[in-house]
């Protein structure tokens, strides 16, 4: 699934910043992918794919108007959702899952109990009781709840900090990337990975309604792990490219040969010289 994101992203990256809809091929492809994933069924991942694509578009520069209209569309959809009574009930349930702890609210109440029992420092190792079949998806989407139960608030803050630092690093790489494709790649990766993490945590703690978004590197799932690592790999590749390029530029500015290895070549060629 993640591979499809990457495919999309690559395509996106290939395309240099474009406006809205004439260049919405990527969007359509992603829609197709999203539809396939949705039929799996895996609404969560489908949503991610689609949302990511939208995000990339936003980054790529669709007009503010379009952003606004997208936002408006979202609100309308929410409003429609509220109309149907059972959907409304589910939304209320999201707000206060304790109304129905054995039925619809089970997932959320279990999650809250798991997190809450972690307290400040978490329960003694392995004693986190919720993972014994009480919390559904304890090893996948709700792994964060178990993490909180066993590592406590301090552990949770630590994890959040890790993600924030990772985000900061990736944004920095993106900001410094001169190559637009690389930029899009890293930007998209950041949104994908960190956005997912934030969304998952929000869902687990009850800030978001339950969407099937796993927590990167912590949720179980081999394919997902590989895909995530691949993404990060791409980011690092961009970084290396960019840093290599930066070094080269600095060296040129400083009058040094651009690369260390082939001094000869550099000296002789004029092409890489920047005009003063």
């Amino acid at each position, binding site marked *: 699934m993640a591979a499809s994101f990457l495919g999309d992203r690559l395509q996106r990256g290939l395309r240099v910043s474009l406006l809205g809809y*004439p260049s919405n091929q990527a969007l359509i492809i992603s829609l197709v992918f999203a539809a396939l994933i949705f039929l799996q069924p895996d609404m969560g991942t489908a949503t991610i794919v689609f949302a990511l694509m939208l995000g990339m578009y936003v980054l790529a520069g669709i007009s503010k108007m379009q952003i606004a209209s997208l936002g408006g569309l979202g609100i309308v959809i929410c409003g429609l959702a509220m109309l149907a009574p059972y959907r409304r009930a589910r939304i209320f349930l999201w707000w206060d899952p304790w109304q129905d702890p054995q039925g619809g609210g089970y997932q959320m109440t279990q999650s809250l109990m798991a997190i809450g029992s*972690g*307290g400040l420092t978490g329960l003694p190792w392995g004693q986190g009781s919720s993972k014994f*079949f009480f919390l559904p998806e304890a090893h996948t989407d709700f792994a964060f709840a178990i993490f909180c*139960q066993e590592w406590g608030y301090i552990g949770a803050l630590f994890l959040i900090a890790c993600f924030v630092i990772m985000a900061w690093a990736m944004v920095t790489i993106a900001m410094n990337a001169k190559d637009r494709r690389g930029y899009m790649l890293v930007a998209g990766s950041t949104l994908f990975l960190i956005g997912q993490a934030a969304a998952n945590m929000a869902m687990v703690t009850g800030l978001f309604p339950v969407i099937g978004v796993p927590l990167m590197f912590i949720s179980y799932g081999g394919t997902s792990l590989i895909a995530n690592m691949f993404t990060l790999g791409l980011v690092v590749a961009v970084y290396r490219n960019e840093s290599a390029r930066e070094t080269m530029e600095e060296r040129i500015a400083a009058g040094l040969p651009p690369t260390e290895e082939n001094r000869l070549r550099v000296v002789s060629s004029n092409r890489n010289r920047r005009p003063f």
Partner: protein
Amino acid sequence: MKRIKFTLNDSRNRLLFLGGLILLMFIAVAGKLLYIQIISGTELGKRATIQVTDKIKRHTPRGRIVDRNGEELAVSIMVHSLYVNPDEMNKSAKPGKEKTEYRDIPRIAAQKLAPVLNISENALYEEFTLKGQFVWVKRMLEPKDYEQVVKIIKENKLPGLHFIAESKRYYTKKSMAAQVLGFVGTDDSGLSGLELALDSILKGAEMRQTKMVDAMGRTIADQDTDLEENREKIQVATVYLTIDSKMQFVIEDALDDAMKRTNAAAAAVLIMDPHTGAILAMGSRPTFDPNHFGKYPAVNWLNRAISIIYEPGSVFKPIVGTMGLSEGIVTPDTPINDTGSIRIADRVISNWDGSGMGMCKFEDIIKYSINTGMVQLGMKLGAQREIEWAKRYGFGTATGIELPSEEDGILYDPKNMYEPDIATLAIGQGIAVTPLQELRAICAIANGGELLRPYIIDRIVAPNGEVIRKGKKQVVRNVIKPEVAAQMRTMMEKVVSEGGGKTARIKGYRIAGKTGTAQKIAEQGGYAPGKYIASFVGFVPADKPQYAMLVMLDTPRGAFYGSQVSAPIFRDTLQQILVAKGIQPSNSEGLPSFEAHVKPGQRVETPKSLPALKQKGNNWIVPDFSGFDARAITGELQKGNLVLEPYGSGKAYKQKPSGGTEVQPGTKIEIWFR
């Protein structure tokens, strides 16, 4: 379309913006976590713990009941009870695995287990498809059923079926002393007999266990590990009864025989130690097998030694006799005129055969169970004294034995007694007693005047060996003087040797006793015609009694006199017991002599007496043992702590070391037999 310039920087700005949004989300999460974990942490934690802990009660095996020598009567073993966790059984198909072969597990399980468990397949299927986590399927499986079920579960990979170990009661001697022991219901609670009376001691520890369970109800961890093993070791107290199972066996046998021969409606037999009050045997008919108590009518569970009352009839006469002797109204030689019948107010009371003996001694009155004489005595005693003495003998109050449902008996209020009542009391009608009360009173005569409190629990031993309770002799009061008792004993001995109790005679032993044939009370009042209670009570040896016994038959058909039906039971039973206990006959009268046994022409070898070890300082001198058997030799060798190494069997013919050798204690003596 206008091409709006959108630079990398613009994009970067947007990126920052989006990044900022994400950061905000993280902060929100951190904030919500703060709320959940720190502020509501303990509350939520408690809720999480509650759903994980499960408190269950577990039972340890019920305490044993054994006879005075440790012979097991009622024991418990842990057996397995099967329960199903329907949620677990039905959740076995995981989502995503629907492509694999779907097994209707409840149906398969119901099918395979129905024949083994003896429950219909449909009933099982219903249980398996309930909602819940715990449903009993079948409790207390027999060990081989359990093994079969385990095999079925393994072979068919059936989830959701589990076992709990429970304590099951086995009465090893089946119906022996059934009423005394009682029986136990499914939840290890005594419902009758000693099981009921001592329920709190036998039931012992009920362990409460807290354990963590997962959402399916399966155990994650026990607070105490290896619970199953520990349970076997945790024992409860053992109750030792005063009952001697060998004697009990004899009387149970005798009771069965009697019931068959006489077709009686019911019967009871009691054996008591007249000096201590310990109950050596206690049996009732009809009876039941406590292992399957439910299959018998409740009337079989009745312990007739203590839970029924009857009018004793002539077996009460010795007691009245001692009243007369104690009050000085009569002596054994007092002359009494027996005219065959006597008239009191509007009642005529006759002897059993209607005939009179004319002038006779009081001891004849007892010997031949003459009603008229007793009535005369009774009239002289009067209502007040009769009732007072009866109370002194313990009638009208339960004896206090450690069994439940003991009757008090019924005594007249002397104020309400008319003359006929005074008369009939003297012959043992008009007073209602339990067999135990009657026997206890006779024991007072047997032991020289002490009214004892009967007891059936010899000792209760805790698992660590400590004796929690010990039964002992308790004297309630001194009823009569030893001289009076001795006089009555002599008279009772004559009943058996010369009088109406001849059928109870055992050759070579001095027996004292009294027969009794009492009219049975009809349900609607008055006496039931043709229905009698035939009893015999006695003790042996007459001069120094060791055993006192009462036999009571309710409504025997055909022969109904106590001397005809009850006394023979007394005789046969006691004969076996006396031989088993090795009580030597008082004399060899009537017993076959040695000469009678030896066939003419057989050489009578005077048996050599076994040579003894001679002690020499710390050592022993081994004699020549030739001609003797191993058992005798071992007994002798034990005195010097010497060990016999036998070869072959028969009589000794060779030994090493040879006779006359001095050996140290502990030496092995080799002897060859043939």
